[in-house]
């Protein structure tokens, strides 16, 4: 089957995983995973190290193909697409890698501009767009620095800027706060909130930290005041709807162990889920 846009109802669901199996050397890491991510929703993917979170993100971006099952993203059956088709398709997806994965021989500005240059965007358009996204991640002053001159948090911010340069409808975050101190983690989460509430992106966020998910569920970014506000203090229906746009998915032993709303996981008596709450 070729990568034709689907006319089924799934076409309106940005990401669908249907009975996905993947593994290496005859050992399956994921065994029949099924879930969906709705438009403008942030699905927080929780699991221990090696649970298959990164594999899930890479399959969603078509960087890896599942052994069986189907991965449908933006109406395209990604698991059946050829690499040539995937290269074009991936332009609609922003991917924030765990360690940033910045090109270490290019400056911050060149890293962010990479995608635009590949798309042959006119030179005079590139600089303002790069400035715009770097201003968004508050790194406009670091344009000429090399990745080796940046701190861990700055690298992640550049990585986010690089992912959103062409305003993709879907952004995949691979442990964006892993290995960062609490203050820097908060900065990254604020960026993810802004991206969600300003641009309305659909996101799949893999993490080991439950508090990341709760931060996304309990707060929102107000574009008017340009501040992060708690949903609880707002108390209106709009805020509640915002909060409901974050859901949790927990992997255990290669399967979906839990899928549900933030309140469900917070109030859960399950011993395994409680381990993430500590």
């Amino acid at each position, binding site marked *: 089957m070729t990568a034709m846009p689907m006319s089924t109802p799934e076409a309106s669901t940005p990401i669908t995983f249907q009975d996905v199996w993947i593994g290496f050397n005859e050992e399956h890491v994921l065994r029949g995973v099924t879930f969906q991510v709705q438009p403008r929703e942030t699905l927080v993917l929780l699991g221990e190290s090696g649970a298959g979170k990164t594999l899930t993100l890479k399959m969603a971006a078509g*960087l890896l193909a599942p052994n069986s099952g189907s991965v449908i993203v933006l109406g395209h059956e990604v698991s059946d697409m050829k*690499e040539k088709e995937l290269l074009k398709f991936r332009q609609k997806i922003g991917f924030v890698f765990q360690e940033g994965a910045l090109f270490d021989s290019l400056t911050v500005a060149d890293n962010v501009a*990479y*995608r635009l240059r*590949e798309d042959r965007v006119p030179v005079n358009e590139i600089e303002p767009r790069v400035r715009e996204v770097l201003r968004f991640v508050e790194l406009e002053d670091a344009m000429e620095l090399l990745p080796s001159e940046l701190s861990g948090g700055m690298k992640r911010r550049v990585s986010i800027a*690089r992912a959103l340069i062409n305003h993709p409808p879907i952004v995949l975050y691979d442990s964006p706060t892993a290995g960062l101190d609490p203050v820097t983690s908060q900065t990254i989460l604020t960026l993810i909130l802004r991206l969600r509430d300003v641009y309305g992106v659909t996101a799949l966020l893999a993490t080991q930290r439950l508090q990341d998910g709760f931060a996304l569920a309990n707060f929102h970014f107000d574009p008017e005041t340009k501040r992060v506000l708690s949903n609880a203090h707002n108390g209106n229906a709009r805020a509640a709807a915002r909060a409901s746009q974050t859901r949790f998915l927990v992997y255990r032993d290669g399967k979906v162990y839990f899928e549900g709303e933030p309140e469900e996981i917070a109030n859960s008596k399950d011993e395994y889920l409680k381990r993430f709450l500590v």
Partner: protein
Amino acid sequence: MEDTPFQAAGSPTKQEETVSVLEVLSGAAKRTIASVQDYSQLSFRAMTNLATGPHYFQDTLDQMDDVGVGSLPIILLSGFFIGAVMVLQTGSQFTRFGQTSLTGDVVSLALVRELGPTITGLLAAGRCSSGMASVLGSMLVTEQVDAMRAMGTDPSRKLVTPRVLATLLMLPLLTAMMVFIGLIGGCVASVFSLRLSAIEFWRRAIDVLEFADLMQGFTKSLAFGFILATVGCYKGLSVRGGTQGVGRATTQSVVISSVLIIVTDTFLTKLSLYLANKIF
């Protein structure tokens, strides 16, 4: 045996499976065949990418600078002394028969047909093939290659094709430089050691060469350039096991490309001599 109480409580120790010699050998054979297949596919794609866009001219120029200009000092230095030592070795034998004037012929033929392309290939393999493997390997383990794919760029087009093309273009030129400087080294040695006239050395060195000899040297340098670039890129893009894997890939790229260059040289020599008799 358990290292921690968690392991002791959580997971039972696995029984070690016994594996037969046949299974080990068949596994190794399968892996080798799979590697050859992957290498062939990558090499094929590197070349077919040339036929369709997008092309990365700036990357190709950067690689030409690295492979060509960067390798020039070691090529020139080695070439000079190889030419000189050739004269000293052959001259000492020719002196016994009173035929020292033949030194120019021998050095010229050996350099153009054999030593020029082979030594250039081996030196470039040591310098460039290892460099390609380490750069691409490092990019792979730091997920830069995945990032490239995630942004819609074909790594074989952006990383492999420019390196292969640049090496194909540069190696014949480097070989020509080595042969020339080798002849200068030979000339200096023959003048000071064998008391030959420089003019006589050059006249004989040039007269002895035929078109087939030049073609033989040119073909070999092209083949060796292709081998060292594709092996370096393949080993870099197939790194497993983090930074240690990068180190292993770097070493393997030099070993494999050097051995392949020497083996290929034998067959190309036989083929070139056959074709020289038939065509030229």
